[in-house]
């Protein structure tokens, strides 16, 4: 991995219009995705991870908008592109895989038509035969017989449909694939195979993958780095191993402790106290402070910036990691 940054999100703010005023689903998030890596983006439902993924493609629902921030993809400022230019980025440079493969394919369109349509949208001079050839190559690589291309989506299993979604993302050699909960609706065995496949594809097609998931186990299995979101903000970002071994943010720690583990002989599963805050009225200071077992005075009044942790480029938004504080304590 070169460490070159492929996609950089800078201070992104996404607001939804609600009856009671604007709701900031993503509030000042910055995230760098390095070329060739698999980055796991985790957090609870409603923490803004899916909104972040959609915002990165500028595909927000009508009642949401990017209020602030920069989206830099491969040296290009996506915010400055016209809708038409952006359309060519979607599917051409950045592919997306959705949560529910059962509903993400058009029920009255054959699989092959999904793929050729995508290819011809971005390469208008590609012939039907070329598109077909590419489609056959892709599905066979993904372990689907090529004659299934003439089937309708309902004739395929869930795992096959999810592989078709991947084929669609690969149809034009996208650099980045944003996978939004791609395994949530698959059973465990299919999920494991699918994750293996993703890793192989990453190497084979030089992909960069942003894997959005609420399942920290998926991240452990497949990701190189992990980004943890909480209540619209980034809590912690770092390489998977140090983050899992020694979480720098109490929220990450809580998430990891909540994963059931048969190997450990614990009677009860750890449960984080409380629930995520109402984003219309987020708590002052650190948004995690009402649930945090280590809450300090400063946490209630001041929002923590990102502090470097673990040495190798990891960061965490927690006052516990404030180098100043450590120094003052040791004094």
């Amino acid at each position, binding site marked *: 991995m070169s460490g070159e940054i492929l996609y950089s999100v800078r201070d992104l703010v996404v607001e939804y219009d609600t009856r009671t005023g604007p709701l900031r689903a993503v509030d000042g998030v910055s995230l760098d995705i390095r070329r060739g890596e698999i980055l796991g983006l985790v957090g609870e439902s409603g923490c803004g991870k899916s909104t972040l993924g959609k915002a990165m*493609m500028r*595909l927000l629902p009508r009642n949401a908008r990017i209020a602030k921030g920069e989206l830099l993809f491969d040296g290009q400022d996506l915010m400055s592109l016209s809708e038409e230019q952006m*359309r*060519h*980025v*979607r*599917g*051409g440079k950045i*592919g*997306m895989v*959705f949560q*529910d493969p059962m*509903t*993400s*394919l*058009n*029920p*009255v*369109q054959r699989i092959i038509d999904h793929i050729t*349509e*995508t290819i011809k*949208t*971005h390469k208008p001079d590609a012939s039907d035969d070329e598109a077909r050839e590419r489609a056959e190559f892709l599905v066979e690589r993904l372990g689907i017989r090529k004659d299934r291309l003439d089937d*309708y989506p*309902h004739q395929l299993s869930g795992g096959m449909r999810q592989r078709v*979604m991947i084929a*669609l993302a690969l149809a034009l050699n996208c650099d980045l694939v944003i996978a939004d909960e791609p395994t949530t609706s698959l059973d465990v065995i299919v999920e494991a195979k699918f994750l293996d496949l993703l890793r192989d594809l990453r190497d084979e097609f030089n992909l960069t993958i942003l894997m959005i998931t609420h399942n920290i186990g998926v991240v452990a299995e497949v990701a190189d780095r992990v980004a943890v979101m909480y209540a619209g903000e980034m809590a912690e970002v770092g390489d998977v191993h140090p983050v899992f071994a020694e979480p720098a943010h109490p929220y990450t720690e809580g998430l990891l402790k909540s994963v059931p583990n048969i190997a450990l002989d614990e009677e009860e599963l750890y449960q984080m106290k409380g629930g995520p805050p109402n984003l219309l009225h987020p708590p002052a200071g650190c948004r995690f402070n009402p649930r945090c077992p280590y809450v300090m005075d400063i946490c209630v009044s001041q929002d923590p910036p990102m502090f470097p942790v673990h040495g190798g480029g990891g960061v965490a938004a927690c006052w516990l990691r404030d180098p100043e504080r450590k120094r003052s304590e040791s004094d």
Partner: protein
Amino acid sequence: MNSLLLLFVALGVPTLGVLVYALVTGSPGLRRHVLTRVALTIPMILILATVVFVVLRVLPGDPVTSSLGPRGNPEVREAMRDQLGLDLPIWAQYGRYLGSLFTFDLGNALTSGRRPVAVELGERFPATIELIVPAAIVAVVGGILAGTLAGSRRKSATDYGLRMFSVAIYAMPVFWLGLILQLIFAVQLGWFPVAGRIDPIVSGSLERVTNLLVVDSLITGNWAALGSALRHLVLPAATLGLILLGVFLRLTRVNVIETLQEDYVAAARARGIKEGVIVYRHALRNAMIPVITFIGLQVAILLAGAVLTETVFSWPGVGRYLVERIGLRDYTAVQGVVAVFAIFVSMISLLVDVVYSIVDPRVRY
């Protein structure tokens, strides 16, 4: 050959074609569905025929009174009842009626020359067809296009405008809309003729083949007659079509809005597919499925609307004939019209139903 029969052959052949296609290529489940559907059509028509039979006899008045007037000579009345077969017990009359249905000879009319009903309908049905086909095209094509436009631009000025238009048009009584269109476009502006099917002057020069004037003038290359027939057609077809257009607009709009929220639309956008392609290929095709089913149901409303439209525009079709014969209490004529309507509607809905199960790949019986 009786031209009514000809008409049913013309409609029956494609229906039969689709049925055979479904039976040959379809799965056993589809075959069973089609056969059940066909089998159900027959009792449906019988029930309708029976209801009309009963209702006509429950209505006050009878063909004798309507011909001779309330003060007719009792002996003459009696003789006429004999002659018309009204002296027979009611079950015998019912038996006769059903018999006439199965032989497709609808009996003789009881009034106005006592001509065979099948012949009278044969002369008039083409006029009705010529009216409802363009009306259906106006309603379906116009409604679907406008509905898609409204649905894809939800909450825009276009959407609000089209929605108001659809409610207004749907709420208008057919005959009133017809009168208003006559007043504006025929009387005030003089663009189109007020009533009738064709200019009487060119009418004589037109050789009749199918009695569909547009078709006949095309076949025989009579351009004067074609122009006149088309000009006469515009207002009645627009009247009848506009009434239904509102319904199709609404239905399409709702379905387009719904399909545009589907995951596969979001997925298509994420692949950079053009918005126009998304709306017209992805969303509309899926939104069309319930709309197609609805077309079958609307044929009945189209015929009901034709009755009023024909009356307003003096259109010599079956609808006007029906109104006239209800007034005369011409039992056989009314029974004949209703039976023909029932067969027509059930054939179309059968056709639509089978086409639907072929079009939607997910429908598997």
